[in-house]
């Protein structure tokens, strides 16, 4: 079973986590056209590659962001929301 490094709880087995889907930025609802909004709501970056995703450590209720390669299932790094922005 995968080990995921939770920024708060450290390395834990996958079964303690919940996948939260891709990290997305919401367009300004007032400014966005219907098409842009639908794109935000439904479409995903599902192609192979390194993705930024939400993960939650369930026993402690900790949400965090992971950079993961969805081809190899390798977690490149994990960090709390906001913490990752500075370095890209």
């Amino acid at each position: 079973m995968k080990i995921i490094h939770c920024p708060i709880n450290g390395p834990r087995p996958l079964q303690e986590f919940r996948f939260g889907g891709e990290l997305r930025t919401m367009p300004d609802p007032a400014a966005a056209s219907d098409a842009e909004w639908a794109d935000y709501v439904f479409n995903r970056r599902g192609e192979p590659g390194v993705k930024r995703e939400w993960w939650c450590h369930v026993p402690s209720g900790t949400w965090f962001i992971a950079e993961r390669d969805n081809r190899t299932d390798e977690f490149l790094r994990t960090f709390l929301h906001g913490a990752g922005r500075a370095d890209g």
Partner: protein
Amino acid sequence: MPHRLLKFALRKDHPEPRMFRAPARLEDEYDAVIIGGGGHGLAAAYHLAKDHGITNVAVLEKGYLGGGGTGRNTAIIRSNYLTPEGVNFYQASVELFQDLSRELDLNLFYSERGHFTLAHSPASLRTQRWRAEVNKHLGIESEVVGPEFIQKTVPEIDLRVGGHQAPICGALYHPPGAIARHDAVAWGYARGADRKGVEIHQQTAVTGIELRDGEVAGVHTDKGFVKTRKVLSAVAGWTTHITAMIGLRTPLVIHPLQALVTEPLKPWLNSIVVSASLHLYVSQSSRGELVAGASLDPYELISMRSTLDFAEQLGGHLLDLFPCLGDVKVLRQWAGLCDMTPDFSPIMGTTPIKGFYIDAGWGTWGFKATPICGKTMAYTLAHDRDHELIAPFNLSRFGRFELVGEKGAASVGH
């Protein structure tokens, strides 16, 4: 004894010709290129040639025929869906399947077993009745049955599910539910298409799609460039890889789906049994193996690795349902890829890019749709217009917020 077998016996040499040729090289240009040598792609090629006389077609398969979802699914065929759009579509597929062995002159072991979707709560029984009523309305054999009927048909089931969980309070029963030999479906279509002149190129990977003024102009492969104005992507779990080549945004996300098979047993399970709340579906193959699967892996992954978690969970749930199977041994586990949509319905037909046609969103239900996808996608390519059966499944439905709610009150497919 069928005469075919006598023929084998009495001939010294092996009388069978190649089922499909291995073309030496790609031509410079094709009327249509089909990406993906699985059941869907090969069926589309077959119907392009048969129904529309379009034979200058190349099927490009990066691996081997039926090596993707076609060869990895658990081969369940049914039409007891929830939405009228879904029911009509899958019913048309079942009808083609029922005669497919004859059509392709290959025994696909199409075996009608009867399909149970078990309900463990009043809520899930409601959903099953909903499905049953929509099915009946559209002329599909489908009904809600009580525990007694389940016990009578499958005596080995423990309706109490071990006693620690909600007991089984009924089921949706779908007599035409069937299984088939999945690989053979791909081979049969391949042979049919091949005999009609379609070229099948295995070990040929698509590396790019050439667009000119937003229209398809050709396909780049690891064996060179070919001109074409029509490309069909029929690669299910690899769809996002293809759509990324042309920047086409879709809701598709890829999840692995795992399955396992046991050692062969003498026939005992004649029905296909599905339990959404146990995340379990199981049937017994004609070879005697139990073929069982679970629901999707809980996170996106484009890799076909196996997990122990899956085997443990499924083992447990199999015993919850069939306590007598404790000694039955699991031979092998494996995984396939599922391209999931938000509404559990496929994405089919034309796209904003002229000449690019998509056959995707097959999640866990692609195999059963193979014949009808071939027929309708062939039509769509030939006429550059969605076949009416698949119009509701066009990619554009998301922009209009007009989803086709197969999710119903949310339950697993198969």
